[in-house]
């Protein structure tokens, strides 16, 4: 039975409409011809819409932060490649990965994870990518929201269908964290850290958060959705987040290409994911040990739904569960909960 077939009765609202493929084509056209002025009539002919529509869509792109010069009479051009996470532009950097073929782009969506879960139920392919310029209700763990300022960050969800036992699936969260770590390290030139299981930090503040959701039957995974939010070009964080969150721009003092960063992220995700599927969690755990200061010897406060204590991290169990040594010497296995650096 195809995954999703039995879920037909589910009463969920219909999917929001993804970005029109012709807007994607328009962006590609402008990006491939930077500095060259293309007339509205020519664009209209190339992408197969009326000139009025071209004008309307140019306004859409401008609202999304693309610097399009010109007007209907003279024609249009952009001075440098647009930093919009549009499928055609993104797919160029993803050749050879399963992520190049099924990219769903939205200028604005409630939550990329919600859309990707829905696509998973409808039987979309492994490797489907859902990306948005803006989220109106980006989600984090335990009902937390994710601050998703328009065109400033990366808000992406990836649909995966690994043929593994659900028991092994939690290590996927480490896989995603390592991919984000490598992308952010390369993109920023800084040395990030990972707070177990997969918050990526720059100078102790959160720059990337990951929420993974999956649907399973007792012995079989249907699919998992890895949702990744990266703060890229925000110039400041809103009040309540300022002390705990940061952006790449705030730490490096310059703007970064989101398009390039997203391509790096997905490329590393493909690499770590394939390694996990082929060799299991062991190499993933070894890499985590290399890059995370939280792996061992870190003083942490652990808050779970039933407990709250301070201890010292003492490595990971074979499936990736964090071990924390209490001050009385007892080792706790932390399966879920909040990990914070303790003074």
């Amino acid at each position, binding site marked *: 039975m195809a995954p999703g077939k*039995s*879920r037909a*009765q*589910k009463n969920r609202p219909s999917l929001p409409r993804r970005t029109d493929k012709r807007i994607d084509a328009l962006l590609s056209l402008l990006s491939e011809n930077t500095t060259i002025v293309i007339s509205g009539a020519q664009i209209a002919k190339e992408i197969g819409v009326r000139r009025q529509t071209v004008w309307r869509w140019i306004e859409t792109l401008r609202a999304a932060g693309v610097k399009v010069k010109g007007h209907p009479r003279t024609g249009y051009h952009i001075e440098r490649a647009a930093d919009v996470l549009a499928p055609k532009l993104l797919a160029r950097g993803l050749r050879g990965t399963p992520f190049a073929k099924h990219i769903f782009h939205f200028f604005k969506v409630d939550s990329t994870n919600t859309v990707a879960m829905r696509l998973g139920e409808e039987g979309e392919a492994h490797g489907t990518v859902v990306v948005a310029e803006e989220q109106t209700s980006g989600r984090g*763990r*335990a*009902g937390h929201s994710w601050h998703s300022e328009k065109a400033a960050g990366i808000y992406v969800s990836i649909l995966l269908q*690994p*043929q*593994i*036992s*659900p*028991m*092994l*699936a*939690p*290590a*996927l*969260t*480490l896989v995603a964290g390592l991919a984000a770590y490598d992308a952010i390290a390369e993109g920023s030139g800084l040395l990030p850290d990972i707070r177990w*299981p*997969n918050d990526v930090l720059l100078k102790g503040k959160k720059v990337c958060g*990951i*929420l*993974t*959701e*999956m*649907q*399973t*039957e*007792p*012995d079989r995974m249907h699919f*998992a959705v890895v949702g990744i939010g990266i703060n890229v070009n925000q110039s400041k964080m809103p009040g309540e987040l300022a002390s705990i969150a940061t952006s790449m721009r705030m730490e490096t003092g310059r703007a970064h290409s989101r398009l390039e960063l997203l391509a790096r992220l997905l490329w590393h995700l493909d690499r770590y994911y394939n390694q*996990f*599927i*082929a*060799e*299991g*969690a*062991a190499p993933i755990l070894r890499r985590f040990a290399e890059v995370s200061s939280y792996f061992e010897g870190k003083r942490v406060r652990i808050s*779970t*739904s*039933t407990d709250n204590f301070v201890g010292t991290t003492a490595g990971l*169990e*074979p*499936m*990736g*569960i964090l071990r924390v040594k209490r001050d009385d010497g007892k080792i706790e*296995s932390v*399966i*879920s*909960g909040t990990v914070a650096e303790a003074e």
Partner: protein
Amino acid sequence: MKRKAKKAGANHSRDSAPDLREVSKILEFMEQHSLDEFEYENGNVHIRLRKAQSHAAGAPFRAAHSVPEIVVAHPATVSSATPEQSGSTPEPIDENLHVIKSPIVGTFYSSPTPGADPFVRPGDHVDAGRVLCIIEAMKLMNEIEADVAGEVMRVFVENGQPVEYGEPLFAIHPSRKQ
């Protein structure tokens, strides 16, 4: 080996869960000593772990190197389907009830977000495919679905409690085919 595994799995109301943390420790021990197989017996529980890489071709999972095969054999005298640690009433479960068990070790959440209404309550009718709860492990939120339609008779675990692999979560009285 295969036959044995099937036997233990077929009787849904009888096989209780191995403690995954124990299994993890054994796995670590096996790793340290480069063991491919491990057998353990204690009272009613008999655990045998064998690394899938020592299998012939055609291992069931692609992540073959990390998949231990777990066989839990119970003598016929074990009759309760509810592990003691769940803390629920020890009354035996009606043979006609369909028990939904946890596929992973994690934390049980009865509602989508803290403070929200639970996904289901005893007495609710659910269709197959309906989300019943979330089990969280390492920030992976696992939506557990009903695999049969019927009435929710019991919820075995309280919100926020840890659950083991294979631990019963819900009992559902399957409805007759409409």
